[in-house]
């Protein structure tokens, strides 16, 4: 069942029935130039279904590059990447688009909501490129907005909501298709500490409901709250620790 079963064991043993949704093996990313920039250097990373992972590191350590490679927005220079059981090397650009439309959700620091559209329709855009008709997407979007606690903002124009609300709309958009993994790049980076805290709590509760989430942050305080923390420095993983969260049966 698990396509990545042959990959090296993760840092900490996990139950065998938990599917590997992400597997990176010896991945590098080099931006050509003089001199070339080695943004990612030999990264091995395995993420299983249901995990909540923080990737933490200082600015310029390669976090965004790593997220783009994981999210198939960019191809690795070398190494293998497999997402949701698909080996990225085997897929052409169109197939990668398809993989993103159904299996990966994104959340960005800048929200990237469409102006002039309601919160509902922005969330419905999460499934835009699956070809699903708008009426059905709107039904799912309503549910997703409810999940992020914004049921009362459905018909508000998304870009006119508060920062925290806007990010929650963006999270609902990533959530709507129940993707295998949600990738969030500095989701609290543009928020005040109160809204940031709300967003972190939301991420935690979504994970508690079973969603696999990778959060990129330079904020160690946020990272330290998550059950798994991967530290990046100069494009290399320098630490990958799982913390047994109190009350977790595992």
């Amino acid at each position: 069942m698990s396509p990545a079963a042959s990959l090296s064991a993760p840092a900490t043993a996990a139950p065998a029935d938990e599917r590997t949704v992400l597997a990176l093996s010896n991945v590098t990313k080099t931006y050509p130039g003089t001199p070339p920039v080695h943004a990612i250097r030999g990264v091995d990373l395995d993420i299983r279904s249901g995990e909540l992972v923080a990737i933490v590191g200082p600015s310029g350590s390669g976090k965004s590059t790593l997220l783009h490679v994981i999210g198939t927005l960019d191809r690795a220079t070398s190494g293998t990447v497999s997402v949701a059981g698909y080996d990225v090397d085997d897929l052409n650009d169109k197939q990668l688009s398809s993989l993103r439309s159904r299996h990966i959700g994104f959340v960005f620091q800048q929200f990237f909501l469409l102006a002039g559209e309601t919160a509902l329709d922005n969330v419905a855009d999460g499934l835009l490129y699956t070809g699903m008709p708008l009426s059905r997407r709107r039904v799912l979007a309503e549910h997703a907005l409810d999940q992020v606690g914004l049921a009362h903002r459905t018909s508000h124009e998304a870009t006119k909501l508060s920062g925290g609300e806007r990010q929650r709309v963006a999270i609902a958009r990533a959530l709507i298709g129940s993707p295998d993994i949600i990738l969030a790049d500095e989701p609290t980076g543009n928020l005040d500490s109160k809204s940031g805290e709300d967003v972190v709590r939301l991420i935690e509760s979504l994970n508690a409901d079973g969603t696999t989430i990778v959060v990129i942050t330079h904020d160690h305080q946020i990272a330290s709250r998550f059950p798994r923390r991967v530290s990046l420095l100069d494009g290399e993983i320098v630490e990958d620790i799982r913390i047994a969260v109190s009350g977790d049966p595992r």
Partner: protein
Amino acid sequence: MKASLEPSRLAPADMMRASLIGLRTRRLRSILSGLGIVIGIAAMVGVLGLSESSKSELLAQLDQLGTNMLRIEAGSGIGIGTGELPEDSTVMVSRVGPVEQVASISETGASVYRTDLVPEGQTGGITVKAVDANLLATLQGRMESGIFLDEAATDLPVVVLGAVAAERLGVTDGAGGTVVWLGDDWFSVVGVMDTLDLSPDLDRAALVSYSTADEFLDHGGVPSTIYVRSDPDNIDVVRSVLPATVNPESPDEVEVTRPSDALEAKEAADQAFTNLLLGLGAVALLVGGVGIANVMVISVLERRGEIGLRRALGATKGHISIQFLGESLILATLGGLGGVALGGAVTAVYAWSQGWDVLIPTVAIVGGMAAALIIGVIAGLYPAMRAARVSPTEALRTL
């Protein structure tokens, strides 16, 4: 390996919505950039509509006046050039087989004034001509008021005025019994003619019968102009034999013209002008297309974030380019519709004010819309290509 991935898809309705986003969020700019197309298409539709409407007006006019009329004048030719035709011309012409009607005009050299107090020479450009009583019928002219010479007592001092002559002499009602000073006598005005499209010189003339001219003006009656109505099928034959018929000795001195040709020549000149305006419309359309392309390129630069997001949501390069191409097409289509409506309205208002039938040719509407669509595609191609080439990772790094 897993089951093969179903390709990303964008439902047609969603494609339309995506293409409308730019227009909805940048309304003023969209309107301004579509204006070039509106003006270009409106110009083309208006020009074609007006030329069609005026052409139909002209055809109706020609139909009414007939194209089977010929005018014979003494040519300024090589000969003596007396400005007069031989005395028996009218009789000779009426003997030509296919000739149906003949009416002659003779210059009396007399002058006409409002009263006998007007100083001599201030004729206002009005000439006094002696004419055959059937002239009006031959010209298929109409009376504005009063009667023509054929219904009046022909040897009395009565006169019929052309439309311009009546105005200059201050005669408002031809049946009102106004008198004018003509030659050395008071003449009664018995009628005023409508304007004559095929012989405008008569609009500025005062007409008397030959017998009146003989009696009161001592005028002999040598014709200077003869109007001929011919069997329409034989008009070319008639035209070719007329010079020799009128003046067998020197046919070169006889000039035969077809007044309806002048109207047709005017139409040809109008056509040239129409083509010029069409050319200008095409230039406006081209400029409109460049305007759309320009605005779209700027829009692509501004909307890099949106493009990055869409790629992250699973859009292929094709989806991105089709969205921007669609936006350009919608802009051009709206511009085209606006242009057709504006051009049609201008045509309708102008034709209506001229009393013409409103005729907007289908080819102008269909052609205008087609031109707009083609411009839309061409203008959108480059921006769409640029949009598809935007790197999603770089787009997502911008804030």
